[in-house]
């Protein structure tokens, strides 16, 4: 694909507060132009990828993401996704995607009944989706979470579909990739931290890759996830991926 400009639209709801963080992280790719999509607009500005950032849209009142789904822009996002457009939701963005039916399941209150903000480890699932395609299999990644309603839940039928269609993209685990309740911060069913839809063009995850995407902050595991997504979707040169993978294959 020629090195033309890739347009990414980051939706801003009243109450979103990680929009600028996501814009900073994506602006690191020279070929990408990132612009804000105000929730009252109807125009996705020809975006090749729409991102729903973290935050507390509408104060997370009633349920996280419940009210945001009725913003005018969401009609366009649902339509865009229906036509195969790529949509990526992080934390509050994942909650909005579930509330709007673009992704199955729901995000319930953490079992601790408390907001949790800390580093966690997540394991990419080999499910040939753009977001995990380029990640080293079996290699846990340290990516921070910050949420009060992050416990993924789906009923039996939906869970069976998610399993059969291999829609899980990340699960919580230990530093060494072990999956057990003690490494699951919020009680998510089957340790699910992120999923994609059947057509693999809509991705949602609770952990924040944009918060681990800058060497100044001492952790670039999140950049690997963004690299995998941007490389697979738009053939962009990875910023960190190659050095990391080479390193992980050797060690």
């Amino acid at each position, binding site marked *: 694909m020629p090195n033309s400009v890739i347009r990414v639209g980051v939706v801003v709801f009243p109450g979103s507060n990680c929009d600028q963080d996501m814009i900073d992280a994506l602006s690191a790719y020279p070929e990408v132009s990132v612009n804000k999509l105000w929730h009252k607009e109807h125009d996705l500005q020809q975006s090749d990828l729409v991102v729903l950032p973290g935050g507390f849209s509408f104060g997370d009142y009633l349920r996280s993401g*419940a009210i945001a789904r009725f913003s005018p822009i969401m009609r366009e996002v649902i339509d865009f996704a229906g036509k195969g457009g790529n949509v990526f939701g992080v934390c509050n963005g994942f909650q909005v995607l579930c509330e709007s039916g673009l992704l199955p*399941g*729901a995000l*319930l*209150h953490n*079992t601790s009944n408390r907001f949790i903000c800390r580093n966690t480890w997540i394991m990419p699932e080999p499910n040939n989706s753009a977001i995990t395609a380029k990640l080293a299999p079996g290699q846990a990644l340290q990516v921070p979470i910050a949420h009060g309603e992050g416990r993924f839940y789906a009923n039996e039928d*939906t869970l069976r579909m998610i399993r059969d269609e291999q829609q899980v993209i990340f699960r919580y685990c230990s530093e060494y990739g072990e999956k057990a309740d003690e490494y699951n911060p919020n*009680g998510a069913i089957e340790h699910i931290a992120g999923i994609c839809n059947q057509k693999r063009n809509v991705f949602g995850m609770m952990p924040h890759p944009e918060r681990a995407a800058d060497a100044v902050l001492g952790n670039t595991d999140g950049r690997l996830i963004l690299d995998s997504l941007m490389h697979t979707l738009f053939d962009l040169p990875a910023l960190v991926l190659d050095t990391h993978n080479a390193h992980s294959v050797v060690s």
Partner: protein
Amino acid sequence: MKFIAEIDIMPHKALLDPQGKAVSGSMKNLGLPEITDVRIGKHISLLVEAESETEAKTKVEKACRELLANPIMEDFSFSLKSA
């Protein structure tokens, strides 16, 4: 005409309700071990302007189904009375 709707939204029975579990636990140190199975949901009251009770009912039904309750995890029920 104005109607008042009193809506109860409760998590599905099958769902783990950590808040309810925590409150059930603290009933003991309140000296009320006879209280069990605490389940916590939302109670919502609202005013709806409608020509008739049936029309009011349809409007509240739509509000619950599309916004106030998430069918994946919650059931809802409501009563209507004229304001």
